[in-house]
């Protein structure tokens, strides 16, 4: 079974930390992995994406073909729409609802959310608010990963293991906060899908 994910956001929002956690989770589940990142100029506040492919079979292309992604996981609502041509008909669009506004012509957030709702399989989650509720706004990206986790062909325990590996150096407190964030995201999706 494969899972193709397009990770989306704005340079500086830290989508690569989500990618790293998925990578560790895939490794823990003994799966093949290819993850294409954007470095360089776009990291300065531009639109950034990462193609992440996880499979029990060998993976050919580093890039996901159009219309083949199982998940768009976006930490910014308008950015989630930019990669729609990659999403498969039955794929899931999972996005944070907090906009990142660094351009003058950013559309109204209501219009953006309305556009997202046109797509059948979507999860809209205010990850910043959920993360803030247990006192760590910085873990909102992990809330997002948790919210997308039910759509992966990777066991949830592997994501937890990924968190332990990625945040291992930062101490047990940070690990626990991020595990909490991961579970909170997962619970949100289970209630709202």
């Amino acid at each position, binding site marked *: 079974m494969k899972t193709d994910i397009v990770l989306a956001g704005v340079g500086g929002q830290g989508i690569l930390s989500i990618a790293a956690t998925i990578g560790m989770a895939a490794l823990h589940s003994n799966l093949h992995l290819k*993850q294409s990142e954007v470095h360089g100029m776009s990291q300065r506040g531009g639109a950034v994406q990462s193609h992440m492919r996880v499979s029990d079979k060998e993976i050919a292309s580093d890039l996901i*073909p159009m219309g083949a992604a199982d998940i768009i996981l976006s930490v910014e609502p308008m950015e989630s729409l930019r990669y729609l041509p990659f999403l498969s008909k039955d794929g899931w669009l999972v996005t944070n609802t907090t906009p990142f506004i660094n351009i003058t012509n950013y559309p109204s957030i209501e219009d953006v959310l309305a556009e997202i709702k046109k797509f059948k399989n979507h999860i809209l989650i205010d990850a910043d608010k959920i993360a803030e509720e247990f006192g760590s706004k910085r873990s909102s990206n992990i809330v997002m990963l948790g919210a997308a986790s039910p759509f992966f062909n990777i066991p949830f325990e592997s994501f937890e293991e990924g968190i332990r590996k990625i945040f291992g150096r930062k101490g047990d407190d940070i690990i626990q906060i991020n595990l909490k964030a991961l579970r909170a995201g997962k619970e949100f999706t289970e209630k709202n899908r």
Partner: protein
Amino acid sequence: MQKLLLLGDEAIAQGAMDAGISGIYAYPGTPSTEITEYVQASKFAKENNIRSTWSTNEKTAMESALGMSYAGKRTMVCMKHVGLNVAADAFMNASITGVNGGLIVVSADDPSMHSSQNEQDSRFYAKFAMIPVLEPSNQQEAYEMAYFGFELSEKFKLPVMLRITTRLAHSRAGVQTMPLHKQNDNSLPTDLRQFVLLPAIARRNYKGLLNSQSGLEQESEKSKYNNYFEGKDKSLGIITTGIAYNYLMENFQDKQLNFPVLKICQYPIPRKQVMQIVKECKKILVIEEGYPIVEEMLKGYQEAGTPVIGRLDGTLPRDGELNPNIVAKALGFETKTDDRIPEIVKNRPPSMCTGCGHIDAYVALLQALSEYSEGRVFSDIGCYTLGALPPYNAINSCVDMGASITMAKGAADAGLIPSVAVIGDSTFTHSGITGLIDCVSDNSPVTIIISDNFTAGMTGGQDSKALGRIENICIGVGVHPDHIKVFKPTKKNMDEMIQVMKEELAYQGVSVIIPRRQCIQTMKNKVLVEKVKELGL
């Protein structure tokens, strides 16, 4: 031996360390930067004295690597494709000197120009220099080619190019490592005049290079990275190079591939296999990432008049990066062209960070220039290039490293006075100093703004060779100390900045203005913060 999760760049670095390099030389440049950073962060490299600090530019890196090779050690030099232009003098002549210790030149190309001014294909440089190229199709091959590339280099006594593109450089996958090779002992070349390129010796060496070409071709023909896959359906033969192979195979995940396929990952082109596929098949499709270099050469190989299709006839786009869909279309497969990006999605180009010192410098400059006609600001390669975008629209050129100063000089020579150059600290030491000497020697009426943020910002905050040296360099090359002005670019200092800039713009000679404030992205870099304090900057 272990399995690691590595970027293509990191796989190359790991392969080189496992192959026993004694040093790596580089100037940061996307998408090559992470190779050297991986070595810099490696405990193994520290314990084994593998030198890895940044070089001042790609040319000094290439030459240092050649020196290390002269002394018998294995070494790698890394750069982005346009960096090879800077290193080209040393690079081209290194194929004439040949090497002693194994030498790999990594050139990371950027098709689709994700972070570059052009999408030149480094394979042309290797062909020009007549040296072998290794072009991995995946991270494992990237590792292995770095690992085995040194053997190839030492066998033929030539530099070897390892060519990658952005996609592989910045994509992560599992990599199996190989047994550690110990570093070479010091040993001088058997002929101590091998590296003396006096005409008589150069002519002899060049003949040697020409004579080695057939051996290199045979090496390609038996390379385990060049593979001929038989296929029953001879109506089409497919040749792929490097990473393009993956995009082909992506289209046959649930279909049978019946066409013969030649996967090329080592050059010179394996003539035997190429002739075989050309003879066997009615038509040849060439899929390569970058310029149509194999496609063009193939047209010259033809005996039977087999049609060759690819980037040159429009079967594939002539420019830009490949992807599975583009290749599907070339194969005649139906592709999903459903363009569903809603209109509501607006472009989000990169921009300078909120609170960046370059912004304050530009705001002041625009004010100071307001009394002159527009179109007189020459800029350079770095974060401040983003000053070209709204709301600043502040610059009129971005060409190559160092070109701001020399283009401003040329424009001033032509009567565009004042002319302004905007260059960063790291770019200034990379290639700006020589241009500044030209300005001083003509006393050109130029105002040079060296926007000093103590780092190479765009590539992720690498060390700047200019740190704490800029004023001394300027004075040293002859800029009058009265016309070297330093200030901290902040909103509070805006009036003073505008005033200083106005005065220097009016001065009919060389002025250097240094807006100086640490890059906000590097504030967490304790070593740098400490150094800045120590230097009193």
